[in-house]
């Protein structure tokens, strides 16, 4: 893994062009299937610019990989779906505009679960992403490509998106750092929606400071996203004797718990650590899936093959045309979620599912707010296990269960970090650090203290 500091040293020693070309060569070799599209030409041109002396911007000369559900003008944005296999957006997402303004080198679009719907990147139309730590295993999902690109030295920084753990899960499985920001901190303009009320774009990297740097660039006011809080983020990590709550309800398998318990013991050297219970969390996972699938069923209705995306030559009626396009264009998991979401929103079930899920959401928020009266930060294992073998999660419910520790954070709109905290049989274990709304600097400050103390 390459930190920004290491990369800058390399830029000082040689040409950006050569350094970027080396990354691109590696990405194109496609060992882990991290990328759906490598933007070789654009990246090398930008590297040349850098070498020529155009070094303006906070991310000047630094490679960033962008998840393929974030719109890039003129570069296809597939959401890892056959439906958008050849879709080229006519505009940049807000975060991409920001990357360009700060001189970042966009080296490609990363692989993911189709429309973000998955925990293993196995639902990608472009094939599964392999975990650089063990190629028999998945890199997690849905931002699997962004994580493997960092872990596999194919980029320095990456953007992921997190609807129910999609940044934190692959970060945990591949041993990288990933931050899901507070809902509303980063504009979603240009992010292809899966579940609008839950998701955020966030930074992924190989060091805490790099997360702070990238977040500083992508966060901030954007009037094109009405849910944007209009706040900017200035990276100034808070370091102090934190009061840390260990969430009782967020568990993991035995081996992961051993690593996690060791982590909590070692941080007590510089923090106050205490257990805390959030009873509503037992309902959070089903509530999360009801809301996510309901929103998804509506968000994905626009893919009808009329204006863009997968299309057919012709067919007798528009109803047949739509259903055939959608039948061919969407994968199995996407169809499953559209169907379940439509069901949850339909007359007679709306109150039973959707409204109930909203109530749970309120309870979850209240539980977290109560906990933050006593604690600065809350921690848990990010994932209930280490990375799965490819193909291991055969049934969808088992896959959904893997999101048990990450989804409540999205329900509550909180910021949360996953950082490496040890290994089980050579497989990384991530710890999740949750902060109160807009307290990313506390999370990152704590992360730095952990990094320094080599927990």
């Amino acid at each position, binding site marked *: 893994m390459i930190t920004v500091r290491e990369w800058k040293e390399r830029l000082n020693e040689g040409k950006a062009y050569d350094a970027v070309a080396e990354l691109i060569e590696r990405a194109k070799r496609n060992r882990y299937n991290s990328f759906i599209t490598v933007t070789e030409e654009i990246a090398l041109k930008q590297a040349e610019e850098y070498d020529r002396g155009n070094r303006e911007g906070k991310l000047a000369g630094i490679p960033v990989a962008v998840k393929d559900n*974030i*719109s890039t003008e003129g570069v296809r*944005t597939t*959401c890892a779906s056959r439906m*958008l296999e050849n*879709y080229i*957006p*006519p*505009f940049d*997402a807000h975060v991409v505009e920001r990357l360009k303004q700060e001189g970042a080198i966009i080296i490609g679009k990363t692989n993911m679960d189709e429309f973000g719907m998955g925990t293993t990147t196995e639902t990608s139309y472009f094939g599964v992403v392999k975990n650089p730590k063990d190629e028999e295993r998945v890199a997690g999902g849905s931002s699997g490509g962004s994580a493997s690109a960092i872990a596999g030295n194919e980029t320095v920084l990456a953007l992921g998106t997190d609807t129910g753990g999609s940044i934190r899960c692959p970060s945990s499985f591949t041993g990288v750092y990933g931050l899901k920001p507070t809902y509303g901190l980063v504009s*979603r*303009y*240009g*992010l*292809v*929606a899966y*579940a*609008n*009320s839950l998701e955020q774009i966030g930074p992924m990297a190989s060091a805490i400071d790099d997360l702070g740097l990238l977040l500083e660039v992508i966060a901030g006011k954007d*009037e*094109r*996203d*009405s*849910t944007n809080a209009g706040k900017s983020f200035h990276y100034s990590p808070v370091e102090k004797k934190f009061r840390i709550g260990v969430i009782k309800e967020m568990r993991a398998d035995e081996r992961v718990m051993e690593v996690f318990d060791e982590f909590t013991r070692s941080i007590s050297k510089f923090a106050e650590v205490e257990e805390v219970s959030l009873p509503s969390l037992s309902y959070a996972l089903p509530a999360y899936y009801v809301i996510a699938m*309901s*929103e998804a*069923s*509506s968000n*994905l*209705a*626009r*893919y*009808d093959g*009329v*204006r*863009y995306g997968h299309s057919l030559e*012709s067919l007798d009626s*528009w*109803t047949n045309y*739509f259903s055939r396009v959608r039948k061919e264009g969407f994968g199995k998991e996407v169809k499953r979620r559209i169907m379940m979401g*439509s069901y949850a*929103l*339909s*007359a007679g079930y*709306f109150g039973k599912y*959707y409204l109930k899920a909203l109530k749970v959401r309120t309870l979850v928020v209240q539980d977290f707010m109560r906990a933050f009266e006593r604690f600065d930060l809350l921690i848990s294992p990010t994932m209930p296990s280490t990375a799965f073998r490819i193909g291991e999660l055969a049934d969808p419910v088992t896959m959904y269960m893997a999101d048990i520790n990450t989804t409540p954070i999205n329900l509550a709109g909180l910021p949360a970090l996953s950082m490496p905290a040890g290994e089980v049989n050579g497989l990384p274990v991530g710890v999740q650090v949750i902060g109160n709304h807009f307290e990313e600097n506390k999370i990152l400050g704590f992360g730095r203290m952990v990094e320094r103390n080599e927990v």
Partner: protein
Amino acid sequence: MDVVIGLEVHVQLNRLKTKLFCSCPLDYHGREPNTHVCPVCLGLPGAMPVINREAVRSAIKVALALNAEINPVMRFDRKNYFYPDLPKGFQISQYDMPLAWGGYVTIETESGEKRVTLKRIHMEEDPGKLSYKGSITTAKYSLIDYNRSGAPLLEIVTEPVLRSPKEARTFLNTLRIILEYLDVFDGDLEGAMRVDANISIAGGGRVEIKNISSFKGVERALAYEITRQKNLMRRGRKIERETRHFDEANSITVSLRSKEEEQDYRYFPEPDLVPIYTSEFVDDVKDALPEMPWEKRERLIKQYSLSLEKAKILVLDPKMADYFERVAKEIDPRVAASWIVDVLRGELNYRDMSFSEGERRLNSDELVELLTYFLKGRITEKGVVEVIRTKLDHGGSVEEIIQSKGLFSIPQDEIDRLCREAIEKNPKAVEDYRAGKKQAANFLVGYVMKMTEGRADPGETARKIREILEEIS
């Protein structure tokens, strides 16, 4: 048999500059298809809606004018359904937290004033528009124009309180006038108002007729539907609840779907928009609310001593009322009202011309000029009408028309002089007259007519000649 009708009126807030959730311009009428579009109104992946605050202001204006109770917090919801003209697979609309509840519109019926109560008013976006090369039945494919997609709509829903097709039409006319007073709506633009009508006859199921695009169409569709349902009932058949389509060309309704096939729109809150606190807008809008037709009517009666009948007609079109007030500054208001209401409006109706078009052809200054000639006796009543007709049909300046058509009347002293001249120059005729040949006077009148090129009033001239003859005998 009791007929109960309720209307859902879709009103395009087409006086706004931009669409409801993007900044695409709204002046797409008559423009190339798909030129007024952007990622938002095309429903491209990743595009997000942003509320047009001016549209909220206009909507609140309407709700206030219709006496509705504005929701302190309103929210947008998604109405999910598939249709080729709907780019996102859902329409952003409002469901359980709409713009406003209740309200009413007072209409004139044959049996006096009636209050048509409203159920609710909500905001929503217009879909795109399908069109066909040739006709819908022969075209090989459909074309979609997204210029209309995302145009701001208000849906105004009445309680089922209308009792006849005519009442329904009167309601729509009245609503149109109110919306035009508010300057949020131009009813002349294509697709400006579209109506769904619900109708049930005592004992029968409720039938909905979808998407009628003209007021005449609403009246016809409802009339057809009443006849159809009554015929069915007479034959002992039950009226099932269903949705029908109005075939404008043949003035009939055709079944679209039965109750079992009713769509489930799976409404839920639009997660990309935040709730709107309407109190931010209401006070401002209230202050800026223009004079409404019923207020203007009362004022015209008081200020200009007009009759109720004249005032009622003048306020039917705010442009006509303004026109009247401009003329009334210069001319006796009652004379002005009478010419505008009885003559000008009649001539416009005869020509199927809107008032604004009429105003372009005969502006208020020109009418003042024309009526001033009339009041000074320089032109006859008939002459005024002729000038108005000429202005509407061919244009030209008032004075030129009067001149070229020779409409200026001859002043009375000139007539008197000519009468005396006729008597002086025709002693023979005078003699005959004196001898008892009364028709000899006609010869003298003929002389005056000749001298004035027929512009003298023959009756008036005859009377004058007899008067002089009696005098000098």
